[in-house]
């Protein structure tokens, strides 16, 4: 696409977003919906900016981020390890594949009460839920990616005397990096969403808890703010991860 074409399509893309905010503003201004039901967008964004400067609010953000990244990191280790192992060994694959087939479509959020009962109400149960939700996309992407690696690459390494395990870790896994990172990116956004939902269901801190607390006291503006914050976080993490991915994959051929 040419430069002018690109900026034209960016302009078109702004239309629906501007339209939504415009309608929101119009409804709020017309008095059709009282501010207790639909606060004007300016009030919400002003509150968002104010909250982002408040240390108490940032504490909640930090709590959420801690659970998010811990869960995501554990999920990444588990997902990549099992995914590579399933590619490397037929026996592992025979065990993992049916398990994944059964567990992947199960709504992981249903396991949350079980995590609460076994791990308590604190961080551990929320992190466990993030792990349960985020591990599957990483596992599947790693398995698909490593299975699709050009076999000649692995053969050459094996012929040069690399051990099967070293070959998996030093040749096959790096060659499958694009797929692995795609899985990680999906899992990162999922982690963001899941941690927020877990905090909404039972928590005493974190962004999700702020939403529930605001909804109990009918503070509508404060209901929007955590929701926008977590969505912004998801968006930023997605964009940031894409940038990281582009750097890491500098030498790889362009993916469709």
């Amino acid at each position: 696409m040419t430069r002018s074409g690109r900026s034209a399509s960016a302009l078109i893309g702004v239309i629906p977003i501007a339209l939504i905010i415009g309608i929101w503003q119009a409804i709020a201004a017309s008095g059709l919906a009282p501010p207790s039901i639909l606060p004007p967008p300016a009030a919400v964004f002003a509150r968002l900016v104010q909250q982002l400067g408040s240390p108490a609010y940032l504490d909640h953000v930090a709590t959420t981020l801690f659970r998010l990244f811990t869960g995501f990191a554990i999920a990444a280790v588990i997902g990549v390890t099992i995914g590579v192992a399933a590619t490397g060994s037929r026996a592992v694959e025979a065990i993992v594949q049916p398990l994944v087939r059964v567990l992947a479509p199960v709504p992981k959020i249903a396991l949350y009460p079980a995590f609460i009962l076994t791990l308590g109400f604190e961080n551990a149960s929320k992190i466990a839920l993030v792990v349960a939700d985020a591990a599957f996309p990483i596992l599947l992407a790693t398995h698909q990616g490593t299975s699709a690696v050009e076999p000649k690459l692995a053969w050459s390494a094996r012929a040069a005397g690399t051990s099967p395990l070293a070959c998996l870790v030093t040749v096959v896994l790096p060659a499958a990096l694009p797929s692995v990172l795609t899985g990680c990116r999906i899992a990162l956004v999922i982690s963001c969403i899941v941690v927020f939902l877990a905090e909404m269901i039972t928590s005493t801190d974190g962004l999700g808890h702020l939403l529930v607390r605001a909804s109990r006291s009918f503070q509508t503006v404060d209901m929007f703010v955590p929701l926008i914050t977590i969505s912004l976080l998801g968006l930023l993490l997605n964009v940031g991860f894409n940038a990281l991915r582009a750097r890491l994959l500098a030498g790889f051929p362009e993916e469709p």
Partner: protein
Amino acid sequence: MERIASVPGLPPILACAALLAIWEIAARLLAIDGLPPASAALAQVPAILGDPEALLNIAASLRRMAIGFVLGIAAAVPIGLMMGRSQYVAAFFNPLLMIIYPVPKAALMPIIMLWLGVGDASKTLVIFLGVTLPVIYHSYQGARAVEERMLWSAAAMGMGPLARLVRIVLPAALPEILVGCRTGLVLALITMVTSEMITRQTGIGNILFNSLDMAQYDTVYAMIVIIGVLGFALDAAFEALRSRLVGWAAPSHALVVGTT
């Protein structure tokens, strides 16, 4: 050869049995209140399914889920197909979808309830929102990949743009659309359970947390098993339907991922 390789359902059944066995052993070894053995939890399943009130709750949840799912597909497929065929439609929707993507849809529940009340409308709307995104995405990808020459030939034979979309793009993109629907179906279930867990009024999610509050741990785990089986069964049923409808397309191993 193919027949032997696909003894249908055997490996998943073995996997289920293994999971139950691990659970049973872990529960007996740990011996904590919060983790009853699998056998105790499974014994509660008939009691739940025999309780008319619980059954009505589950049926109501499933009805909302089905309505939200169908409405979601009805809205998402046309949008996705048009995005795939027109650069301008794609440019129009893409930034909006990118912004909506990381929003936890079930978390919208408290806000939507302010607007639409506590009834079925709010719950169905949230499920609708959860379903649309993956279906739009896959319809978009499917429509983009349609062979241009087929469209040129149709246009040369005098077929209008709308007829081309319905009679050429839609069938050609169907395999990809159904992949999106499969993800959407799982997401509909997840959104339903999650939003019911958040609002705590009716439905499957509510039974789950009510029994947690009343310390009926066997029932909690029995509900988890029921929801898990529901997820697996819906996915398997849809996969069977998919392979009947588009058996001609290569079987897809799309990631069934996503959450709301």
